[in-house]
């Protein structure tokens, strides 16, 4: 098990309001670093038009967005059946994609900053425990 493993996979509770008005809290996990390229590809199209960020997005990007929604759902709920997750991701794609982008890229909130500070502290503490050549 890697050194950073214990810090990974912390899900964030997000309240989602569906089109029919019902609300639910989902615990969503961030995507893995290998998906940064997909986020960048989405970013190239997403947000060209600041008033309507979804305008001008091509089919390929939409497929990519759907993939990322499904991947997030699989990471967050690995025990759930895949076909159910796929159907859920497709149905609620438009609700989930801004939340997923925000979950992976936005770090503005004070709560998140506090989490980062804690992580930094824990990393520093771990680094002190690693024996150096001098002590060996």
């Amino acid at each position, binding site marked *: 098990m*890697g*050194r*950073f*493993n214990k*810090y*990974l*996979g912390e899900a964030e509770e997000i309240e989602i309001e569906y089109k029919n008005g019902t609300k639910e809290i989902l615990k969503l*996990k*961030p*995507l*893995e*670093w*290998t*998906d*940064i390229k997909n*986020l*960048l590809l989405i*970013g*190239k199209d*997403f*947000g060209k038009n*600041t008033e309507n*960020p979804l305008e001008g997005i091509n089919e390929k990007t939409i497929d990519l967005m759907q993939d990322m929604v499904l991947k997030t759902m699989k990471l967050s709920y690995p025990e759930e059946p895949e076909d159910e997750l796929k159907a859920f991701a497709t149905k609620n794609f438009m609700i989930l994609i*801004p939340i997923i*982008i*925000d*979950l*992976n*890229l*936005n*770090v503005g909130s004070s709560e*998140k900053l506090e989490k*980062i500070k804690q*992580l*930094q502290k824990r*990393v520093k503490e771990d*680094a002190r425990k*690693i024996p150096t050549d001098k002590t060996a």
Partner: protein
Amino acid sequence: MLERFRQIKQLDEDENLIGIHDELMRNYGYISIYELKKMPIPTVLELLDQIRKYKERLKRSLRKR
């Protein structure tokens, strides 16, 4: 959110996977490439951000001397 995309795009132009791997290892010790690939995006971004802030502080303190 759009601002964050701009920052990420900048990151993509400036750094590649190996560059990021090298930067993290310089600061936190050995990390396997597999481990890096599996790390959540916000964790990697924040670690890189912390390294950048540390470098800026170091530069400022060196300038003062």
